[in-house]
Every structure is written in C-alpha cells, then in structure tokens.
C-alpha cells in the first residue's frame, strides 16, 4: 500500500472537511470569538477604568460646601504636598490629579455610595483653618482605596513640609533624615498582554481541539464507522496522523480566530495601550512568534487530547476524560499570570507549564535560549509520545469492546476464586493508594506538628509504620480479598532457591551506598527541593534517631517498609501487571510507580528521591522476576533500608573506617569500590541461579 504525502493530505482533508462542516465546530470557531471578546473587553474596560487608577480627569473628591472645596483644592495644589522626587518616581513618576467637587444633591457619602465620586471628604474648618479632614472611601473599590491612600499621603507630605519648615525656623540646626527609595530585581513586564496571551492560547487551543478530537476518534465508534475504517488496508497510525493533522488545524484556526478577534477588540477599544504599556505595538515579528507558539500549543494539545479520546468508547466517555484535563491545564496557564516564575530548572521540561512560560518570555521579549530550546524539544517529545499512545489505542479491539463491568461489580466479591488480580483492579488500587497515602501522611505530619515537640520518637516511628500498613498494606489486601484472588499467587509468596536470597543480600550490601550517593549528588546539583527549614527539621529527626534503640529503628524503618512495599509493588502490582505486560515492562511499570510513591511525602514533592528509588525498584523487580517470588526482594529491601538507617545513626562511629560523612557527605572511594563489587557479585549469583519457572496449573486455580 502506497503511503504518499498526497494521500495523507487527502485523508486529512476529509477529516478536516467533516469537522469544519459540523455546526458544533462553527460555534467554537466563529461564534465564540465574535461574541466573547467584545463582551470581555467591555467588562475589562469597565474594570480597568474603575479600578486601575484615576479616570481621565483624575480622582473625584466630593465635599459638601464651597468653602471645603476651596480649602481642599488649595491643599492639594500646594507644591509642598508633592512627595520627594525619588518616591514619586518609585510609584510611576506621575502626580495624581484630584478634582474636588461640591456635591449638589444629598451628602458626599450618598454620592460616593451612588458611585458618582471616588472619595468623599469632610473638612472641619474653625478660625479660618481646617482642623480635621475626614476622608471616606468606598470599601472594596480599588480606585476609591487608591484615591484615599494618595490623598492622605499628599496631606501628610504637606504637614511634614510645614512642620519641618517651622522646626528649622525655631531650631536652625535641626535636620531630619531623608527617606529615599530604590528597587532591585527584574522588574516584571508591565505588559499585561504577555501574561494574558498564553492563557488565551491555552484556553483557545483546547477549546478548538476538544470537539474534533472527540468526534474524530470516539465519534467514529459512536457513528459505527470505526470497524469499516479498521478493516481498510491503511495502518492505524496513518489514519491517526490524518486525524491529528485535522485536529491541529482546527485548534490553530480557533486560536487564530480568537487571537484575531482579541486584538481587533483591543485595538478598537483602545485597551492595547492600557494592557501592553505605552508605545507597545505588535510588530510582524511578534505576530510570527505568536503563530509559532500557537503551532506548538496546538500540536501538544491535539496529541494529548487524541490519546485520551482514542481510549474512550463513546462521546460521553471522552468528554468525561477531557473535562478534568481541561481544568488541570488551567493551573499552568494561571501560573503565567504570576510574577517570579521563569523558564529554568525542572520547569523548562514541565509539560504545558514550559510552553506557557515560554510564551510569556517571548511576548515580554525576555527569552532564555537554553530554557526555550528545552521547552520546545520536550514539548515535541511529549506530543510524539502522546500520539504514539493514541495510535496504539485508536481502534484497539479491547477498546472497541464494551466492558460488562459496572462500578457496582468492583465492590461485589466474585463467586469463583481466581489466581491473580487484573490490571483494571490494580489501576483501582493505585488510584486509591495515591489519595490514601496523601491523606494519611499529611494527617500524620499535621498531628505531629500540633503536638508539643516532646512526642516520643519511638511512638512517631511506630505511627509511621502503622500508616504504611494502613495504606500500602491494607488497600491491596482488601482488593485481593474482595477480588477473591489466591493470596499466595497474588502476593507471589512462593518459595524460591537459596541462591536468590544470597544474591539479594550481597546486592543490598552494596546498593545502599549508591542510594546514598544518588541523594548526595541530587542535593549537589540542586535537584533537592527541600527548603532550609525542612532540611533543618530532617536533621533534627536524624538527631532524634540517635537516641532510640536500633531495633526500633530497624523494625519501623526497614522491616515494615520492606515487607509492606514489597508485597504491594513486587507482589500485588507485579502479578497484576504481568497479566498483560512483558516481564521487562512489568519491572519498569512497578519500579516507576515505586519511585513516584516515594516522591510524595506529606505535601512536599521530594523529586530527588525518584531516580534512586526507581533504580532500586528496577533491581527489586528484576530479582522478583528471576526468583518468581517476593521473599528475596523483601530481604534485599530490608538490608538496603537497614544499612542506610544504621549509617545515618552511627556515622560518627564509622570514622575509623575512613568515612568522614559529616564533612564531605560523599562516601570514601574505597567504600564505593567495595559496594560496587558487592553489587556485581550479587547480580552474578542471581544470574547464575536457575530461575524458578512460574507455573500456574489449572488445578491450582
């Protein structure tokens, strides 16, 4: 079958034609931009004019009598009420205008309530001089609050000047200190558009891509055209590519239409100057850059949305998947509105967030080349990965068939016992583990923080172990019980050869050292995201550990995690995943999950733990696969954790071995060489030991 570009173009054209003729697409493509922006600009205009600062003729101050008006106006006009130049420059350089009016009908307060004034003032004049000046502002109104603040400041400057002059006349040597001000740091761009456009891009490309993504994938199934499509002699990825091109085009068109409408509205209403600052004009370069950004946004969203909608069996199901994604996408988009966040460090590769920040940097004319390159490259990578997932899912037979299971069936115990849990059940367990561990670990931390600091350390560690059992222990156990699966096979508790235990023990003797090094390295390269306060707290915890029995430490920090985590990851999840995945895929999937769950600690994300823990997970998974049992992994996990904890507890006693952990924190090279040799010997033993063949006979079911 000849897969030419012209054919791809024809296939894409059909998808595009189908989408563009649909009136639902027309609504997002034409109606939204035509209606939304004029309405939004009206609201924005109103908001900006009423809140950002004084109106065209300055702040309006209302007073009751002509006398008050004259006095107030003369005080404001007095040059001594002007703040010193440095302070004036810090707040923009312009002196605010005030227009004092005499309220004709009703009191100034009533006029203020009716929004005819910015502030009301009352001057008590006695003996031809104002004695008190009372300024009333409208609660919650930005303009009114600003007017009050500025007016009071001006009156204070006047008072200060007066007082200083009098004092200097009386005490000629009197001199007071001068207050000046300056600013440091990068001044955030006054260009509000640079922050708003990325948000609009996110919203509009998603809005544009959602409908075609659903219609061209889940819609095929719903219309009954999927089977005929799949029966045709065209590779699935080719069909999907045509659909992808169509979705990208519609997303682009929608975003272009929206941006066009937005700019047209802004320039027609004169809001551009207000949002982008004086003299800001959109040149050809900016327009080209915005268009390129649009391509990037559309390419990313179209791929992500297609990967989700390809999995959905119906339009409704696809919508259910997409709504949370759309809401989630708003979070990074909102971040673009925040100052102080830049395209550097891990943020340069954070999906979506990186392109939102890139958009902001480009529009603010402040691009960091490395960050920008990383952002574009990683986004292309994410889009390709999402597209690959979509191509695998699209038209998949398993997806085509409707599952007979309902929500209720998840909680009904089946009548017949089965060997192992299914992947779906494992997915449910993971979905429950995440919030459960979040709630339990945060709850525990908050409770400990609320107690006085003298909570027994042993008790704290015991609580930690209980929390572990309650989440990673109980949830898979409950799932195994409810699913009526055989405990031995689900948790892979079969016996295995002695060689695996020996290999596991020797690997663990060396592996802890590399885990330690990985943490130190992560810290050195600035990957550690613990702040100083958290580090201090961690050091405090480590100091406390030195006061308790090593057996308690081992029982809570080595035995409990080894048993519970191994039974969960290399037991329950491993046996569930191995139903559908190849051994290496199973090892990798469980290892990545193992790594991810170690990243979430309380409300912090310990990103530096991901790599070492995932690597340990791979080693444990490989051992579990080779041995066909969870036990050698438990031994290795126990020894690994135990050695790390003991080194942390006794490091000052280890100085005689040449380890000066406190100073360098790196382990001595000799230690690393020995550790490396241990790992190699251990791996050799595991490789050399004949694997235990996993047999599940029909009778054992």
């Amino acid at each position, binding site marked *: 079958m000849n897969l030419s570009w012209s054919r791809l173009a024809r296939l894409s054209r059909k998808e595009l034609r*189908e*989408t563009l003729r649909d009136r639902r697409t027309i609504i997002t493509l034409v109606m939204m931009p035509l209606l939304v922006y004029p309405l939004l600009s009206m609201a924005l205009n109103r908001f900006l004019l009423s809140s950002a600062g004084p109106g065209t003729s300055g702040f309006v101050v209302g007073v009751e009598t002509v006398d008050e008006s004259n006095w107030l106006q003369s005080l404001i006009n007095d040059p001594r009420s002007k703040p010193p130049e440095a302070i004036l420059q810090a707040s923009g350089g312009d002196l605010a205008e005030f227009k004092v009016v005499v309220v004709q009908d009703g009191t100034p307060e009533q006029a203020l309530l009716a929004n005819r004034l910015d502030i009301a003032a009352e001057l008590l004049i006695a003996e031809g001089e104002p004695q008190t000046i009372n300024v009333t502002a409208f609660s919650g109104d930005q303009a009114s609050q600003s007017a009050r603040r500025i007016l009071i400041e001006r009156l204070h400057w006047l008072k200060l000047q007066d007082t200083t002059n009098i004092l200097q006349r009386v005490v000629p040597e009197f001199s007071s200190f001068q207050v000046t001000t300056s600013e440091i740091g990068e001044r955030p761009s006054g260009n509000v558009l640079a922050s708003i456009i990325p948000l609009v891009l996110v919203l509009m490309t998603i809005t544009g891509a959602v409908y075609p993504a659903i219609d061209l994938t889940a819609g095929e199934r719903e219309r009954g055209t999927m*089977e005929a499509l799949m*029966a045709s002699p065209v590779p699935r990825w080719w069909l999907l590519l045509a659909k992808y091109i169509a979705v990208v085009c519609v997303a682009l068109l929608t975003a272009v239409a929206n941006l066009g409408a937005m700019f047209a509205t802004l320039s027609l209403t004169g809001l551009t100057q207000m949002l982008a600052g004086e003299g800001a004009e959109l040149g050809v370069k900016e327009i080209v850059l915005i268009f390129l950004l649009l391509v990037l946004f559309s390419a990313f969203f179209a791929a992500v949305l297609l990967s989700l909608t390809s999995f959905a069996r119906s339009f409704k199901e696809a919508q259910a998947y997409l709504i949370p994604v759309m809401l989630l996408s708003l979070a990074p988009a909102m971040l673009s509105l925040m100052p102080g966040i830049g395209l550097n460090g891990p943020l340069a590769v954070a999906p979506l967030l990186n392109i939102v920040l890139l958009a902001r940097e480009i529009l603010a004319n402040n691009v960091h080349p490395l960050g920008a390159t990383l952002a574009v490259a990683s986004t292309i990578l994410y889009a390709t990965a999402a597209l690959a997932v979509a191509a695998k899912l699209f038209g998949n*037979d398993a997806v085509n068939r409707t599952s007979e*299971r309902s929500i209720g069936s998840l909680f009904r115990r089946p009548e017949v016992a089965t060997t192992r849990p299914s992947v779906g059940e494992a997915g449910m367990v993971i979905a429950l583990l995440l919030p459960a561990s979040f709630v339990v670990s945060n709850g525990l931390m908050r409770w400990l923080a609320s107690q006085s600091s003298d909570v027994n350390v042993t008790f704290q560690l015991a609580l930690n172990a209980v929390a572990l059992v309650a989440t990673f222990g109980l949830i898979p156990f409950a799932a195994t019980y409810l699913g009526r699966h055989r405990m031995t096979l689900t948790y892979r508790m079969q016996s295995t050869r002695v060689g695996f235990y020996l290999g596991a023990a020797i690997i663990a003797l060396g592996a802890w050292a590399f885990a330690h090094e990985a943490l130190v390295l992560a810290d050195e390269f600035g990957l550690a995201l613990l702040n100083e306060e958290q580090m201090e707290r961690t050091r405090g915890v480590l100091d406390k550990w030195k006061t308790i029995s090593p057996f308690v430490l081992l029982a809570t920090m080595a035995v409990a995690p080894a048993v519970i985590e191994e039974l969960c990851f290399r037991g329950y999840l491993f046996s569930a995943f191995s139903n559908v995945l190849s051994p290496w895929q199973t090892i990798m999937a469980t290892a990545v999950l193992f790594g991810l769950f170690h990243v979430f600690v309380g409300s912090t994300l310990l990103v530096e733990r991901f790599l070492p823990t995932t690597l340990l997970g791979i080693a444990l998974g490989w051992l579990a696969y080779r041995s066909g049992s969870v036990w050698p992994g438990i031994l290795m996990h126990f020894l690994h954790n135990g050695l790390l904890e003991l080194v942390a507890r006794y490091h000052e006693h280890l100085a005689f071995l040449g380890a000066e952990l406190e100073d360098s924190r790196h382990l001595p090279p000799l230690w690393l060489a020995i550790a490396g040799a241990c790992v190699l010997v251990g791996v050799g033993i595991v490789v050399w030991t004949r694997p235990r063949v996993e047999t599940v006979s029909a009778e054992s079911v």
Partner: protein
Amino acid sequence: MLQIHALTKRFVAENEVVCAVDGLSFSVGPGEVFGLLGPNGAGKTTTLRMVLGLVSPDEGYTEVAGIRTSINPFAAKAKLGFVSASDGVYPWLSVREMLLYFADLYGVQPDAAAERLTILAEVMDIERLLDRRAGTLSTGQRQRVTLVRGLIHDPPVMLLDEPTRGLDVVGVQTIFRYIAHLREVGKAVVVCTHRLDEAERLCDRFGLLHRGRMRYHGTLNEIRTESGRQHLVEIFDDLMNPVSHVVETPT
C-alpha cells in the same frame, strides 16, 4: 478465494479464559455464498474480525486470494470487502465524498474510483443520493450506500456480518438482490447470520457454529443427511438443547 485454517481465538474475561473460536476451518470459492451460521455468541463475528485483521488469532491463519493475512495484512485487507448491519456513515460528508474516501483508503486511484462509483451507484440505485449529505439519508438509503461502500474497491471476497439485522422487508430484499449480484459477478461471499430461514434461501454452502466450533459443514443436503433433520432450525434446536433431542428422538 478465501481459505481459513484452524483459526482459534481465546479471550480472557473476568480472569477466565473463553475459547471464542476453536480450530475453525473452511474455504469459499469464487461465485460461492457461504453461510456462517450460529446463535449469538457462537463465534461468527470473532471469525470475521480475525479474517478482517481486527483481531489476531491465537492459532491458525487466513488466506485471502492467496495472501496470508498474518504475512501481508494490508494486501489481504485490500482484497476484502466488509459490510455490517452496524455500519454508520459520516453525517457531514456527501455520499460521494464518503465513498471516494473509502476508495482512497483501499488505494483505488481517484479516477478509477469515480468510474467505479458511477457503475455501482446505478446498480444499487443511489445515483440521486450521491451529492446529498450522508446524515440526511433514510435507513434504507443508508443501507444501500453502505453496500456500495463494501464494493467500491472491487474486492474478490465479500464479508457480510448480520446484513439484514434491523431491516424491514424492502431492506431485506435489497440484501438478497445484492448477494445475488455478488454471486453473479464472481465474488466469494461469507454471510454471517442467525436468521436461518434467510440463510437457506441465500447460501450455497453452510458452516454451523456452536460455542466456537464447527458442528456441521457442507451444502444443505449434506447437512440434512448428516444430521437427519430437514431444516437448519431443527438442527440448531438440537445443538442448543441436546437433552430435548434425546427425549424427542424416540417419538
């Protein structure tokens, strides 16, 4: 033209292995209409899906016009036409656009496709529908368009899955005429149905499936002789209710 050798497919449903198709073999020659019959869940659709390459078999293989689907799936797919009762249309495309799209999918050159469409439109009486939006067609019109779609690339083998399901008398007659036309132009046709009375009228040979296995296979007369029953309905009743058969036999 179509040869099926020991096709087997097992599914895992709720942790239980179900053998949907078990060692199925048959062949269909040019100009022959083969009825793949069986109650719901017998494995007919799974067999068709394996032939179409939508599901890969656990064992066995299929040859379409001498091409093994496992070795050259796309070349084999190009020789197959497929029509199912659940086939839909693209509502926003015109009938012509939709049919030419499928011709393109099957690698038919645009000029040849347009020519072929003119001939088929006349045969299936859809000339007046060609420039209408597919979403505005009636059920009968949509069915005729779907039948043309299956033939647009002139495949030597046609697979029809429950083609009369949900159709009225006129619709069923259209299917009958369509199958007669396919036979006339020398296509190898496989019709999957559980409408046994229709199958008796339509097909030259039959395969009776029950729980994934071929229970009877041959012409109507051969099956009658083998089973000792006159009608396919009775044979099926025996298959479905073996006990009643034992009770009934002495009477």
